[in-house]
């Protein structure tokens, strides 16, 4: 305990579902979730494997705390080799799918090979079946969800599915569970669709036990109190969701807009969390209906929203799913930034509509918005024309263009299929690779590293390509957690990034949400794990596990051909100073931070992991 110690291995080529014991030796070294699946991937999938071939394998995995009463303990991750980046993909999702997998008695579900025709996996406690999905292939996530619930006559069935975008080969398609929670990044949905798998459905009735229930109850209750009393997890996130950041980051001068030409967005307040609370003129309702919590979450940053019924995006569209006229998963900060600020669009309803489409068709809104923003710059510069865009007037600030592009990517049709290749491939194809705001082929999240220096180092070294969820030094540089550092300074940021990266890997691998780390340190996680699991789980051990995970991911990427040479940023961030705001004139100080980072990691000057470091971590 609190692993179920059972793995469900599904071979789609052979059509077999087999139970096997979890490798507990690896669990001791890598804990669970992100770390443990990384170990399985690196042992089973050669680094040069074509991500969309049957030889790639995907791991849907929970952590030891998943399915328990620890706050936010509903998380699962999908680990595989990414078709967007060519490096390791690890996308983490909330909702109610991870806990259901655990409740059904499985730590992990492995999908290997490729089915001959469309299938879905149905798991009911010990029973697992591969069932035909021809009737839902070509349908959206929401339609597939309805069909599966109706077929199994079970309102409590938990569904994770891919949309049409994944089937059509959009390289940043995600897996959507519970209608609007996403394992969103790096194209994990594309990999699932490449295996002819439309969905995984789970029903669990076994429950999850812990090693020392009394100690666990005490530890989780104390930890929940810390979350409730913290200004970020107890006030900011419940009140405004992740969108609490929109105005804050804009004021910091780190809000990328117009494909990162500028870093202060005039329209930020119109698409902010505060704006989501304002009543509309038409029906008197605000955009936000209420908070939604993922499983066991006592923070509840999730948003349930509606679209203005008179907004152009929902007018004269007879075939729209009924949820566009009702409530569904609303805007998160990253989506609002990518679909809005980066494209120069300040139309809250257009962004909410685009977010709904991303949920319905399983698209990563960060990569989508960033790719559209890059295409907009190419369009305004004359590098592409309406002949390339299916006639869409792709100017910055054009909400109609955003809506149309999102629909096309959702269906993987026409210009949407091109945008679906991601900004790196799109910009390269049209002769301007320098305009792609990516690292290792993955689009940036919503923090300009010219204004938050630590994030530049984080993007350049992130093992899944540019990402905010691998080392969120924004917490320190902007919010002062756990200590305030100057966002414009590079000094000390190498050590800060390393500390965040290692701790994050441990948080992820426990099966809890990284948002708890606004209030919790590993000092708060360790007692919960220690009570839940057999063995001794100390802060030191968790720190070492985090470092071990980071290095293992790095080694896999190196072997895949993405070592130190790919630890860089687009020229715009290294050469063009920020045009306004607190960071005006500043570029990213990556060149200063990177050598320090390598040294502190115990890596060679070229960024390769040394023998000594490997030996120290038991790799």
């Amino acid at each position, binding site marked *: 305990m609190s692993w179920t110690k059972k793995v469900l291995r599904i071979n789609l080529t052979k059509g077999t579902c087999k139970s096997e014991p979890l490798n507990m030796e690896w669990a001791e070294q890598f804990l669970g979730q992100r770390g443990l699946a990384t170990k399985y991937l690196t042992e089973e999938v050669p680094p040069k494997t074509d991500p969309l071939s049957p030889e790639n394998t995907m791991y849907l995995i929970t952590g030891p705390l998943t399915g328990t009463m620890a706050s936010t303990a509903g998380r699962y991750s999908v680990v595989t080799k990414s078709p967007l980046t060519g490096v390791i993909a690890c996308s983490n999702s909330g909702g109610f799918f991870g806990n259901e997998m655990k409740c059904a008695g499985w730590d992990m579900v492995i999908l290997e090979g490729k089915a001959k025709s469309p299938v879905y996996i149905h798991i009911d406690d010990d029973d697992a079946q591969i069932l035909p999905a021809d009737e839902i292939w070509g349908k959206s996530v929401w339609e597939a969800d309805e069909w599966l619930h109706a077929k199994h006559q079970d309102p409590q069935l938990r569904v994770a599915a891919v949309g049409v975008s994944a089937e059509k080969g959009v390289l940043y398609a995600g897996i959507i569970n519970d209608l609007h929670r996403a394992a969103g990044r790096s194209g994990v949905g594309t990999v699932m669709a490449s295996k002819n798998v439309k969905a995984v459905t789970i029903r669990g009735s076994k429950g*999850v036990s812990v090693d020392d229930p009394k100690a666990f109850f005490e530890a989780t209750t104390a930890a929940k109190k810390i979350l409730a009393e913290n200004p970020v997890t107890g006030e900011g996130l419940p009140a405004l969701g992740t969108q609490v950041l929109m105005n804050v980051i804009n004021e910091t001068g780190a809000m990328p807009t117009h494909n990162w030409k500028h870093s202060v967005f005039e329209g930020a307040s119109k698409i902010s969390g505060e704006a989501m609370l304002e009543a509309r003129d038409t029906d008197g309702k605000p955009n936000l*209906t209420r908070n939604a919590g993922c499983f066991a979450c*006592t923070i*509840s940053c999730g948003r349930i929203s509606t679209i203005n019924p008179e907004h152009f995006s929902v007018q004269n569209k007879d075939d729209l799913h009924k*949820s566009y006229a*009702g409530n569904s998963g609303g805007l998160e900060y990253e989506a609002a930034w990518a679909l809005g600020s980066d494209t120069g669009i300040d139309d809250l309803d257009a962004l909410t509509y685009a977010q709904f489409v991303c949920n319905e068709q399983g698209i990563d809104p960060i990569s989508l918005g960033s790719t559209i923003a890059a295409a907009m710059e190419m369009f305004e510069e004359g590098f592409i024309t309406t002949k390339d865009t299916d006639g869409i007037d792709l100017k910055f600030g054009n909400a109609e263009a955003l809506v149309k592009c999102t629909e096309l990517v959702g269906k993987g049709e026409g210009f949407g299929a091109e945008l679906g290749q991601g900004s790196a491939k799109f910009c390269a194809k049209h002769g301007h690779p320098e305009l792609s705001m990516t690292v290792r082929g993955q689009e940036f999240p919503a923090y300009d590293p010219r204004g938050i220096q630590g994030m530049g180092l984080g993007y350049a070294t992130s093992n899944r390509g540019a990402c905010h969820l691998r080392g969120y030094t924004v917490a320190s540089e902007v919010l002062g957690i756990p200590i305030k550092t100057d966002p414009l300074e590079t000094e000390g940021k190498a050590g800060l990034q390393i500390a965040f990266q290692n701790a994050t890997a441990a948080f992820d691998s426990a099966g809890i949400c990284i948002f708890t780390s606004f209030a919790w340190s590993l000092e708060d996680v360790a007692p919960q794990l220690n009570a839940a699991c057999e063995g001794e789980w100390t802060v030191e051990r968790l720190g070492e596990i985090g470092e071990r995970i980071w290095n293992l991911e790095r080694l896999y990427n190196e072997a895949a051909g993405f070592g130190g040479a790919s630890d860089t940023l687009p020229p715009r961030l290294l050469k063009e100073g920020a045009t306004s705001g607190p960071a005006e004139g500043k570029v990213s100080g990556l060149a200063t931070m990177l050598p320090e980072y390598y040294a502190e990691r115990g890596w060679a000057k070229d960024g390769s992991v040394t023998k000594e470091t490997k030996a120290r971590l038991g790799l």
Partner: protein
Amino acid sequence: MQMSLVIDANKCTGCLQCEMACSYEGEGVFNPTKSRIKIFPFHDEGIFVPYTCTQCDEAWCMHACPVEAIVINKATGAKEIVNDLCVGCKVCTIACPFGTVNYNADSGKVIKCDLCGGDPECAKACPTDAITYQDANWTGYDKMKDYAAKAVPAS
């Protein structure tokens, strides 16, 4: 003083902490399927509704039981199942108009909310006060106060 569970669906975020607390208290395991309080999400309407036994005074389940296995806890007013007497006939599950008495196939007995002997775990686990445990005579007090406040002119 008799207390009762008070539910405010408008405060519920659907996190299921209450279901976990309930299944843990009742069955010693974290398992929503074994919870005696259930959260029902209504997706299109954007609302989550917690639902459990309201401890009727003239409880249908208690009157229907042929072996008198449902008894009143005099301290809390809860209608409790006496496991040693329950024969698993499920007549109480039919009698209850609200569906809040349920059969547990693992034990062969029925289960229902027993107010945890007067200290309900669901209310303690709820992070948003959507479930509270209050003086039974004043269960509408907060709602009354909210409506009364609407008569106060804005200052």
